[in-house]
């Protein structure tokens, strides 16, 4: 579904991505985790077609990304700058659907349905500034869902909300991605989150970014905020990812707390 091959990108003489290759199968949720400033966002922007990478190739469903693909949606970290404050939640969700050739009534229906899925059925006529950060991010997710993309990109989607909201949103994303069978690339700096949400975790090295490891999570489909995080497999994998993010090798046996 998604094939990123030898992606290289430099800003001037500063190399940010140094040959990154990631694959995601249909319906898979791949988390990309790496230290802050390692080029995660540049990776996402290249996949989205927002920037043209210096080298390498991105294929989505076999098609090379040479401009912004029409089957792709993005959830940004900064919801307050991604939603349009002059529109209600429903209109924010419905606006992109014009491209899908839906008439006004059908757009409205699709928007209401998507808002319902993220638990905001009552907030359709609210403006973003009337909502909490978590609610705004839900609207952002609803907008992506209603658009029915085959690839969903999320750039630190839970980076700006409090811990409780973050857990709710993680479960929401797991639920809706599984429900729609959407291929998802989720970028995060949070090690714990990458293991909890991902089917696979790709760890990037410090800038310039290369793939340090590509680890299957193997925790099964149903996850629980408390129980899953207590599993031995979860704890081991989290430690492993933690070591890799800090620049260690995956064979290291030193346990680090974080």
């Amino acid at each position, binding site marked *: 579904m998604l094939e990123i091959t030898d992606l290289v990108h430099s800003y001037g003489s500063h190399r940010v991505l140094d040959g990154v290759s990631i694959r995601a199968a249909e319906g898979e949720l791949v988390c990309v985790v790496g230290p802050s400033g390692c080029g995660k966002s540049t990776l996402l922007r290249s996949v989205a077609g927002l920037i043209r990478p210096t080298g390498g190739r991105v294929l989505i469903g076999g098609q090379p990304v040479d401009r912004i693909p029409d089957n792709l949606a993005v959830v940004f970290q900064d919801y307050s700058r991604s939603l349009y*404050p*002059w529109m209600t939640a429903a209109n924010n969700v419905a606006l992109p659907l014009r491209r899908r050739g839906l008439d006004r009534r059908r757009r409205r229906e699709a928007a209401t349905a998507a808002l319902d899925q993220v638990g905001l059925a009552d907030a359709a006529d609210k*403006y973003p500034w009337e909502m909490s950060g978590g609610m705004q991010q839900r609207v952002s997710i609803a907008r992506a869902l209603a658009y029915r993309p085959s690839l969903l990109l999320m750039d630190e989607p839970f980076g700006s909300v409090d811990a409780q909201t973050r857990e709710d949103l993680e479960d929401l994303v797991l639920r809706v991605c599984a429900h729609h069978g959407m291929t998802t690339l989720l970028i995060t700096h949070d090690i714990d989150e990458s293991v909890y949400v991902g089917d696979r975790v790709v760890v990037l090295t410090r800038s310039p970014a290369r793939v340090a490891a590509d680890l299957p999570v193997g925790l099964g489909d149903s996850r629980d905020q408390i129980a899953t995080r207590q599993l031995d497999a979860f704890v081991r994998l989290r430690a492993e990812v933690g070591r890799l993010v800090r620049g260690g090798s995956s064979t290291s046996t030193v346990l680090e707390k974080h």
Partner: protein
Amino acid sequence: MNVIRAVGRLWLVPVTLVVWEVATRAAEQPFFPPPSATLARMGEMWLSGPPAHLLLTEQAMDDFGPSLARLFAGWALAAVLGVAAGIAIGCSPRLSGYLDPLIHLGRAVPPPLLVPFFLALLKLSTPAQLTTIVFGIIWPILLNTIDGTRTVDRQHLETARIFGFSTAQRLTRVIVPAAMPKIFAGLRLALSLALILLIIAEILAGSGGLGYRLLTAQRTYLYTDMWGCLVVLGLLGYLLNSAFLLMERRVLAWHRNARQTT
């Protein structure tokens, strides 16, 4: 509480009026009629007509009608031209590269100086007056629109790109609403400038209207009439600004609220 606060702010107005009344009565200068005399004269000139005309006299129609028509026509014309050109220039770096020097040159020319030129060019006084107003007030609208269009949040634009908005959608749903707060600031500034330029244009190229009335009153030593014109112009400016703020508050409710919460 609000009433008390409003009274607290407004007390200076009657106090000023009383002091002025006392001072002008004591001075007995023909150039400075007491405010009571000015108000009485204003009522006589403009508000002593038949009830069917809302008490407005014929002179009121002659003075206010043409002036207000010119004011609003000039402002509306400048708004349409300024916003349209501003969006085009703001969206196109090439266009702005060509036009920026011209804009700053044009802005620097004092518009009253151009009245004789516009008169020579356009002969009739009304087109010349309108041109003066438009030329004088378009700059804040144009510059604010350019600025507003250029400074749309990058992520707002990227979201539009990701979801494949058409050019029309991007313009009407993203760029224009995002630039609206700055456009409105320009429009408000232009409205107060329009009143100033209206009077200048009517004094310099006049045939009827408040500016012309002001000029003839001064030339025929009717100082109370002249003061009446000054007072009514002040009131007009105040009312226009208040009405505009009321409209702005409705149209830009999202902007005010969004800024309060973030």
